[in-house]
């Protein structure tokens, strides 16, 4: 779960990291009120959960009420990279003497948190690391340990900093690690961490992405998770306990397993267009697949459905009953092709077939996709002919 910038800033502030004066708004009027309290000039920052907001016009500066009124009016309701702007964060606009970078993330391959600092902030750290590696320093942290200030100072040692900057930056880094640990984050990042003319540091941006699997035990208050899902179908997917990703096409998918689901999408994508990615994980029940059918069918203009499931940990015969019940109750006019192998496969096939689902018994998903393509094309032709 990635938090909004304003949510992350609240947490950073509570952890002792210096952040700008600020407030969040949902309407132009609120924006003007908040800005009045902060004092002009202010920065207006669209709160959408997507990278590259700035380049897409989502971060603007306003030096007075009129300017802000116009900017906020334009931003609210507009779309940035497909996401509707519903909230704007207003912050004091500060003079920037220099921009730094500080971030910590999970280095999956090393299996450890990695703290990264750079004297060149404000741009993508990956690019800085490639173009000017001497401006980037990193340090792996022992997983069950805290990050001690001396380690932060060691990380920054070769940057040749003044005493006050060394100490202040090491302090921010230590607190960023505490935030990362306490909230079990995947990423905690400040980019840029700016040096003010008075030499103080200020986190004018805040990124905090949490681990969905750890949210249950975070004791500190967290924003509502559902707010994060801007797509209704994806939210519904989470509610029923599956991963649903909304895509542009018209071929529905129900798969058990992320890899299998992705492979299915890849194969569908060769000749058709996938409408969604859906993977059930290891929790298939009769009811779950019934609901998956409901969910997949919510997408308009669907032309066909691929069900691609394995009976390893999943009782696929039970799942098949859920699909059959959905078909019986609602009637489904578009073709459904199912590939279902593993434990209880024959029983599963029988249930699918009785419900009018086309069953493919070969292993390769490609065969099932081909059959679906054929059925969909035939139907289309029939329609066009009709």
């Amino acid at each position, binding site marked *: 779960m990635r938090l909004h910038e304003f949510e992350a800033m609240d947490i950073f502030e509570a952890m002792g990291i210096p952040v700008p004066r600020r407030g969040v708004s949902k309407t132009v009027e609120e924006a003007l009120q908040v800005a009045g309290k902060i004092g002009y000039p202010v920065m207006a920052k669209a709160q959408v959960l997507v990278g590259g907001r700035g380049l897409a016009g989502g971060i603007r500066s306003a030096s007075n009420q009129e300017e802000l009124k116009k900017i906020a009016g334009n931003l609210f309701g507009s779309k940035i990279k497909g996401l509707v702007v519903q909230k704007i964060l207003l912050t004091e606009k500060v003079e920037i003497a220099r921009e730094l970078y500080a971030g910590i993330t999970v280095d999956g391959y090393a299996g450890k948190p990695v703290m990264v600092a750079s004297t060149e902030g404000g741009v993508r750290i990956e690019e800085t690391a490639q173009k000017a590696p001497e401006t980037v320093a990193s340090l792996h942290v022992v997983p*069950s340990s805290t990050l001690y200030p001396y380690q932060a100072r060691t990380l920054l040692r070769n940057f040749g900093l003044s005493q006050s900057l060394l100490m202040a930056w090491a302090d921010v880094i230590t607190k960023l690690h505490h935030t990362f*640990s306490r909230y079990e984050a995947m990423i905690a990042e400040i980019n840029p961490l700016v040096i003010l003319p008075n030499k103080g540091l200020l986190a004018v941006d805040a990124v905090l992405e949490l681990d969905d*699997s750890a949210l249950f035990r975070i004791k500190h208050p967290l924003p509502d998770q559902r707010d994060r899902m801007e797509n209704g179908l994806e939210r519904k997917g989470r509610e029923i306990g599956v991963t649903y990703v909304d895509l542009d096409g018209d071929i529905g998918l129900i798969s058990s*397993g*992320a*890899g299998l689901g992705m*492979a299915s999408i890849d194969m569908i994508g060769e000749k058709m267009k996938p409408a969604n990615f859906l993977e059930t994980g290891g929790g298939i029940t009769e009811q779950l697949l019934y609901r998956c059918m409901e969910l997949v069918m919510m997408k308009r203009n669907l032309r066909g459905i691929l069900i691609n499931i394995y009976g*390893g940990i999943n009782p696929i015969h039970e799942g098949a009953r859920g699909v059959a019940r959905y078909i019986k109750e609602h009637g489904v006019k578009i073709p459904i092709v199912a590939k279902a192998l593993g434990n209880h496969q024959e029983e599963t096939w029988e249930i699918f077939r009785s419900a009018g689902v086309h069953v493919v018994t070969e292993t*390769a998903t490609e065969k099932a996709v081909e059959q679906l393509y054929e059925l969909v094309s035939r139907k289309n032709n029939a329609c066009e002919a009709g």
Partner: protein
Amino acid sequence: MSILLDDSTRVIVQGITGRIGTIQTRWMLAYGTRVVAGVTPGKGGTSVEGVPVFDSVEEAVTRTGANASIFFVPGPAVLDAFLETVDAGVKLIVVIPEHIPVHDMMKMRAYAIEKEVFALGPTTPGILVPGKGKMGIMPGSLFSPGRVGIVSRSGTLSYEFGGILSEIRVGQSTVVGMGADPVVLTNLPDILQLFEDDRDTDGVVIVGEVGGEQEEKAAYFIMEKMTKPVAAYVAGRYAPEGKRMGHAGALIRGSAGTARGKEEALRATGAEILESPIHVARWTRKHNLRS
């Protein structure tokens, strides 16, 4: 023969009294695995599928000589069970469950390395040696004995490859699910090393997916160390940036972790890149990989 799992492997099932633990124990026994003990704290003294249940891993080890363990415990309880199992001296651990906190995974991995334990997962189907035994949830019917190794980040895609190979009568030496979480207990190159060293494996299929850098690191390893033929499939070509495709690990961040990038890295090593799983047949013919 096989890697990791052999005739000397005596398996504990942790969480054996749960619904899935019980069913999977039955399947593992049916497949010929030596499941010698179950552990569920507080349920010691009972038995499941004829397997004695103990309160603690230490008792299970002491009383049955178990040396390996497979987990069917809820995600939030895995860290505790893992540390207990390592402390009890078990040297092979397979963590089946999904949704385990990443910060727990980092602790477990550090502890496994410190104590020299070989562990797989999480979110893995486990290990299967066709016709011999399995520590995992793979449906045995899809696999057949032979000389091709499979290592897969995806559970279900390992079944798909097993099934396709078996259909063309190319058997498998060992099938290893390494899991697809951002942090896994053993990385891909370490598993490739085992296959490289295994005299009963003639070639290896790598099944990768978007996210992380396992495949990229594996490419280095293949370049430097592998002598056996390698085929690789990477799922997620159409996965959009910034969307988790099911696994917490299957996430493309900017230009990092894309299927194309991984394919390129692997292709540069001379490995065969499979556009689709079904193309694995061609590769086995090319290298004459038969049972």
